[in-house]
C-alpha cells in the first residue's frame, strides 16, 4: 500500500515538472516511479509490490492475447462452421479455494476468453457454471482455464 502511494506520488511530481502536462507524462512518471521502487526494493521493502505489478502486467498481456484468440475463434465459428457442427454444453468449474474478488475477476475474464461464458454461480460460491460454445472435451477446457487465467490471477492477488 505504501509502495503504491510512493509510485503515484512520483508520477504526480513528474507531472508537475512538465510545462504542458499530458496523460502520457503521467504514465511516464508512473513507470519512472516503478523503476525507482524496483531499484531500491531492499531499502523500501517494496519487493512484494514490484512482484505483483509485474505479474499483473504479464496477466494483462496474456489476457489480451486470449481475447484476440477468442474473437478469431468466434469469427471462424460464425462464418465457416455449419451450425449443426457446434457442440454447446454446460460445464462446472471448481472455484472453492478463491476469494470473492478472485472469483469476480475470473468469471469476468472467462466471459471474454475462447469459447466460454459465465452463466451462474452456486450459492456457496464454490462452483461456477460455464457455457461452452464448442466443447468436444470438457477436461481440456478446465485445464486451459487453470493454466492461463487462474494461474495469472493468483500470481498478482496473492
Amino acid at each position: 500500500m505504501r509502495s503504491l502511494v510512493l509510485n503515484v506520488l512520483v508520477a504526480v511530481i513528474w507531472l508537475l515538472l512538465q510545462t504542458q502536462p499530458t496523460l502520457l507524462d503521467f504514465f511516464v512518471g508512473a513507470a519512472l516511479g516503478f523503476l525507482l521502487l524496483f531499484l531500491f526494493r531492499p531499502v523500501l521493502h517494496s519487493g512484494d509490490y514490484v512482484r505483483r505489478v509485474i505479474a499483473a502486467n504479464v496477466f494483462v498481456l496474456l489476457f489480451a492475447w486470449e481475447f484476440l484468440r477468442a474473437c478469431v475463434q468466434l469469427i471462424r465459428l460464425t462464418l465457416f462452421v455449419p451450425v449443426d457442427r457446434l457442440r454447446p454444453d454446460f460445464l462446472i468449474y471448481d472455484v472453492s479455494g478463491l476469494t470473492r474478488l478472485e472469483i469476480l475477476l475470473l468469471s469476468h475474464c472467462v466471459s471474454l476468453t475462447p469459447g466460454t461464458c459465465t452463466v451462474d454461480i452456486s450459492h456457496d460460491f464454490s462452483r461456477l457454471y460455464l457455457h461452452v460454445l464448442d466443447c468436444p472435451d470438457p477436461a481440456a477446457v478446465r485445464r486451459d482455464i487453470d493454466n492461463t487465467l487462474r494461474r495469472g490471477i493468483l500470481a498478482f492477488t496473492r
Partner: protein
Amino acid sequence: MNLYQEQISVGIMILGALLVLIAMIGIVRFPDVFCRAHALGKGLTLGLMILLFGIWLDPKTEVSGLKVIAAIFFQFVTLPVASHLIARLSYEKNLPRARRR
C-alpha cells in the same frame, strides 16, 4: 504521419464495424440463447473497442484522449456482464437450448 492518419483511422473503424457485423451474424445464426450470448459478449466488445480506437485516431473528431479511454474501459467492463446476465436469466427461466448431438 499526419498525411495518412485519416486513412488509418477510417480503416480501423471499418475493421471494428466488420467485427460488430460478424457478431450480429452470429446472433442470428447460432442455435440458442447461450450461444448468442457468446457472440454478444466477445464480438461486440472487441468490435466497439476497435471502433472507438479508430475515432480516437481520427484528426477531425475533437475528443480528448482520456474520454475515449474511459469509453473503451466501460465497454470492456459492462458488455461481458450484459452477456452473462442474458445467459443467467435464460438459465433460471429454463429456456430451450440446443443439445449435444
